[in-house]
């Protein structure tokens, strides 16, 4: 299942937290060879993990990380505006209705579940957009991700690219709406109700009468 967790609440899920940062080290440092920082414990983190981002994390049945992504509002500091603005014409993307998504990651342990986990993480983003009246998410991605998004049924619109072949990186824009949700659900076989239930479990709503009486 998917859990939505802000960074300051991660400590309540130590197993999930540690396996996520380890899986990120594996994916970004070892497998993709990005210039990222890995701590002695084997955790990959950067400055954006320290400004309380919202993670959407797929939790495997044993409580470890299956896949995740990290979100921040574009009205504050973001990776794309701070470091990759050349991809988008030199000027920042700033909108209350656009969030930045970074560190989209899958655990090497998911095996045959990879398709489902990837789709679930993307669906978590769509559901957040629908519930919170967001328009889009923006992010920088590696050339190798293009076919993965295509297979998931959630192709980004490419805003700009640099480099060629395997070393190409692009800035992409993903629509966070019912159409994207339906498309990813159809390709993955995940029921929309399941996605809604994940969101509701992370952000439970009381009844107003319960709050005052309690």
């Amino acid at each position, binding site marked *: 299942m998917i859990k939505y967790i*802000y960074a*300051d609440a991660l400590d309540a899920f130590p197993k999930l937290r540690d396996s996520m940062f380890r899986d990120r080290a594996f994916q970004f440092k070892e497998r993709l060879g990005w210039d990222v920082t890995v701590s002695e414990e084997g955790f990959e983190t950067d400055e954006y993990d320290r400004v*309380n981002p*919202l993670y959407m994390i797929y939790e495997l049945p044993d409580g470890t990380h299956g896949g995740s992504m990290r979100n*921040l*509002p574009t*009205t*504050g*500091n973001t990776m794309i*505006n701070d470091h990759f603005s050349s991809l*988008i*014409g*030199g*000027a*920042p*993307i*700033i*909108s*209350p*209705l*656009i969030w930045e998504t970074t560190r989209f990651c899958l655990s090497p342990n998911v095996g045959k579940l990879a398709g489902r986990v990837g789709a679930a993480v993307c669906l978590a983003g769509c559901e*957040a957009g629908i519930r*919170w*009246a*967001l*328009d*889009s998410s923006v992010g920088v991605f590696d050339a190798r991700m293009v076919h993965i998004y295509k297979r998931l049924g959630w192709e980004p*619109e490419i*805003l700009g690219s640099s480099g060629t072949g395997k070393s190409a990186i692009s800035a992409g*824009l993903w*629509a966070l709406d019912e159409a994207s949700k339906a498309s990813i659900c159809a390709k993955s076989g995940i029921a929309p109700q399941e996605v809604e239930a994940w969101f509701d479990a992370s*952000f*439970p*709503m*009381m*009844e*107003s009468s319960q*709050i*005052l009486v*309690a």
Partner: protein
Amino acid sequence: MTKLETFLEALEGSQTPDDVQSLVVALRESYGVSNAVYHAVNVGPMPYAALTYSPEWMQYYHDQQYVQVDPVVKGALQQFHPMDWKQLDWSSRGSREFLGEAISAGVCNQGLSVPIRGPNGQFALFTINDNCSDASWETFSKEYKRDMMLISHYIHRRVTDIFIPEAEDKSRALSPRETDSLKYLSLGFSRTEISDKLKISEHTLRVYIDSARHKLGALNTIHAVTTAYSRGLISF
């Protein structure tokens, strides 16, 4: 004009903190809610608030140091999604007693709060508040959450301009695509024609236009075009 457009147009004309205060009061009328609150924590030299709560309640809130108890503040300091008050952490007895007192002082039972994040840790908070059933609030929120997200950020933008007019910075620069989008709009092309010309989808075109509007502090597309033109950002 929609409620949103009417509000944004009025906001455009506001020049002083008092103007913003009257607009926040007017917002309450136009959306039919009981209270509206904009609170900038670290934008100007002093915290600034434009709100419809009673002065007595604000004084009491201050004296009791309720800022340390208020789950809205606690939630919004850490999180950045729009928050229904019924999703906040009311588990402590102190927070529930606080809510009881707030309601006796005219604060209502339903609330939607939008945390606002600016560059370099800038923080503000916008809230609307009303007395109604959970079901009617749900309907209202669905219909107007997007308006509230935009209104909160535009108020913030306006207040920033009023308090720190020198803050005009690189975050306001338009990208070439944003400039192109505005330029074609100003020449009277339809959105479909523009997205064809720029080889982008209409969704992306809308994002460029909205982003340009946000950067220019422009409240509608025509205003964005004229502002960009008057600042020499686009030319014909």
